[in-house]
């Protein structure tokens, strides 16, 4: 019979022990083992990657690595190769620990004999194969579940659309005049359409998160506005339970780099929970502030004075399908996915979410979002354009005096028109309308970065200037925009220079220019 040869890699620094193992394998009379020996972990790791052995025998005490550290490094290098650790007589504890960290088996030196060794090697290989197979099946099943739920949510949306459309047609009086009661009842129906819609979306999101396919579309967002808009939509819900929502938003809060739809979803989940799980007349505080320890994050807190959660409940709130039950919390409405999804969404932003609570202490949920930096915004452009040399133009659009005297709504309208024009003038893949870098202050200037040279920048500035001059909203309010540009030369970088370095440098220089312009505008204004 001709079994395929099994490649065994032994990492063992003691030549005597290595020879012993070689002899034992020979003794089995089984010529199917092909043994390679490395004396150090570094050499072993190289062989591991290069020769892909069927099984690795790993001594836990090596000159260049000790104990479980060796195991971790070997697993990192070749996760699919089964590992048997070798330990001395006095160290079975470490060996047992190794099993829980992913080793398939352990052998105690001095207690090994040929047959046992051969069998251990074969079992380890077989067990590893089964483990990988199970893992593969699990992943396949998750993907099938994802496909299935995608399909289901798609199919559910069609009838939901028709229900929404016809309910709103009737509600808007397109099928005749309604009496107040009819109006109220239809309003309730529509409210439930909205809930069903959220549930369908949540199911899909939760599955996405499980298979690691959750995507976000981050951009520069002013957190203050986001909080206000989100709470605006929740006022009615809060009022129904006579719950007061207060806000505390730091005036100097920087913009965050977040997906506004998702950030709003997280905040909505937290506030809705706070409304739902507190008694009538409760108070909720939403606070947004710098995240104490970490200057690169902003922190949002949702604090209620409700009953709080027991340590046991608190430990599980972010789990999928967990709902704080109990007979006194009347509604088990919803899927129990809200906090699970919130956690996934916050993590997708690189932030953290956590809870501070205790019985009778209320609940305080916190989450963090990364502060917007120009580097975040410029990186995809610089990477996509492989812009290691050449230049980047910074186009500045100043809004003149008259506009500053406008009432806020008119001001907002002017700004939106200018933004519209800018978006229309840029090439989406290469150019960027910068978000308001000081969201706490009214916007005095808008900035565009464009991947172009002097000639291109001149053309683009002229185009923006012409289109703004033709814009009715600006003319109507007597706003005279001023358009100027300057070039940021990209110093020639060696090909191998890390892109983060380039991005950091360019972002830093643009930030300086923008700050300088804003200060100047302040002094003039």
């Amino acid at each position, binding site marked *: 019979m001709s079994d395929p040869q099994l490649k065994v890699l032994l990492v063992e620094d003691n030549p005597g022990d290595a020879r012993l193992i070689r002899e034992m394998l020979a003794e089995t009379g089984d010529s199917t083992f092909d043994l390679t020996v490395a004396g150090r972990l570094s050499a072993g790791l190289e062989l591991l990657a290069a020769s892909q052995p069927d099984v690795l025998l790993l001594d836990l005490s090596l000159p260049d690595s000790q104990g479980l550290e060796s195991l971790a490094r070997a697993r990192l290098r070749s996760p699919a190769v089964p590992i048997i650790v070798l330990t001395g007589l006095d160290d079975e504890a470490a060996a047992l620990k190794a099993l829980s960290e992913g080793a398939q088996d352990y052998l105690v030196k001095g207690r090994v004999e040929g047959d046992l060794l051969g069998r251990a090697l074969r079992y380890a290989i077989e067990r590893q194969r089964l483990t990988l197979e199970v893992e593969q099946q699990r992943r396949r099943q998750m993907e099938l579940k994802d496909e299935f739920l995608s399909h289901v949510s798609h199919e559910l949306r069609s*009838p939901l659309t028709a229900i*929404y459309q016809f309910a709103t047609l009737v509600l808007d009086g397109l099928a005749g005049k309604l009496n107040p009661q009819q109006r109220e009842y239809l309003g309730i129906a529509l409210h439930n359409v909205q809930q069903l819609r959220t549930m369908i979306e949540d199911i899909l999101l939760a599955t996405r998160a499980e298979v690691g396919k959750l995507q976000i579309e981050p951009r520069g967002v002013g957190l203050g506005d986001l909080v206000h808009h989100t709470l605006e939509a929740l006022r009615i819900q809060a009022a129904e339970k006579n719950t007061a929502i207060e806000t505390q938003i730091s005036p100097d809060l920087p913009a965050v780099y977040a997906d506004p739809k998702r950030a709003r979803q997280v905040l909505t989940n937290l506030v809705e929970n706070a409304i739902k799980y507190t008694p009538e007349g409760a108070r909720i505080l939403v606070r947004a502030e710098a995240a104490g320890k970490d200057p690169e994050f902003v922190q949002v807190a949702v604090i209620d004075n409700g009953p709080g959660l027991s340590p046991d409940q608190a430990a599980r709130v972010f789990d999928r399908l967990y709902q704080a039950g109990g007979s006194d919390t009347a509604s088990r409405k919803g899927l129990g996915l809200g906090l699970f999804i919130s956690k996934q969404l916050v993590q997708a932003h690189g932030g953290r979410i956590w809870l501070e609570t205790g019985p009778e202490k209320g609940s305080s949920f916190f989450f963090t979002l990364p502060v917007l930096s120009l580097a975040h915004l410029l990186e995809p452009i610089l990477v996509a354009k492989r812009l290691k040399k050449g230049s980047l133009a910074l186009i500045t659009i100043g809004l003149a005096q008259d506009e500053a005297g406008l009432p806020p709504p008119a001001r907002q309208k002017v700004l939106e028109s200018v933004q519209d024009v800018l978006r229309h003038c840029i090439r989406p893949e290469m150019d960027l309308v910068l978000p308001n870098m000081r969201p706490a202050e009214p916007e005095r200037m808008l900035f565009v970065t464009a991947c172009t040279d002097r000639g291109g920048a001149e053309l683009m500035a002229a185009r923006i200037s012409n289109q703004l001059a033709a814009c009715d909203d600006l003319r109507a309010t007597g706003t005279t925009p001023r358009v100027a540009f300057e070039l940021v030369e990209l110093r020639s970088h060696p090909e191998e220079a890390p892109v983060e370095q380039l991005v950091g440098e360019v972002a830093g220089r643009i930030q300086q220019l923008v700050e300088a312009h804003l200060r100047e505008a302040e002094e003039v204004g």
Partner: protein
Amino acid sequence: MSQKKILIVDDDKDTLLGLAIRLKANGYQVASAVDAVSAISVARKEEPDLILLDLGLPGGGGFVVMERLRNLMSTATIPIIVVSARDPQSNKELAHKAGALAFFQKPVDNDLLLTAIRKVLGQHAAVGQEDPER
């Protein structure tokens, strides 16, 4: 000002009817099609000012329809807004690349859709840059 004409393409007849009533009530003329083939023939015959296009259609998906329309002289420049039950995460960008000005996931809020339609039909050309979902 003459009435603008909108072609609705959707294989769900209830959705089609609901949308048609809504658009007529807002002063638009409406044409309709329920599959890929008729979408193209109706678009050629009626030359609408705007097409609201579903993606999952019998006889070839919405993407096929968009490609055909782009390659026909009489329909190449008709603006298209996609209104689909499909997941925006995997379809929104594809729709933009295929030339759609906006992507809305069903059920779409009436006001959002009407605002986008008004923008496309005249005043602003920049609707494609905006994300209607936000």
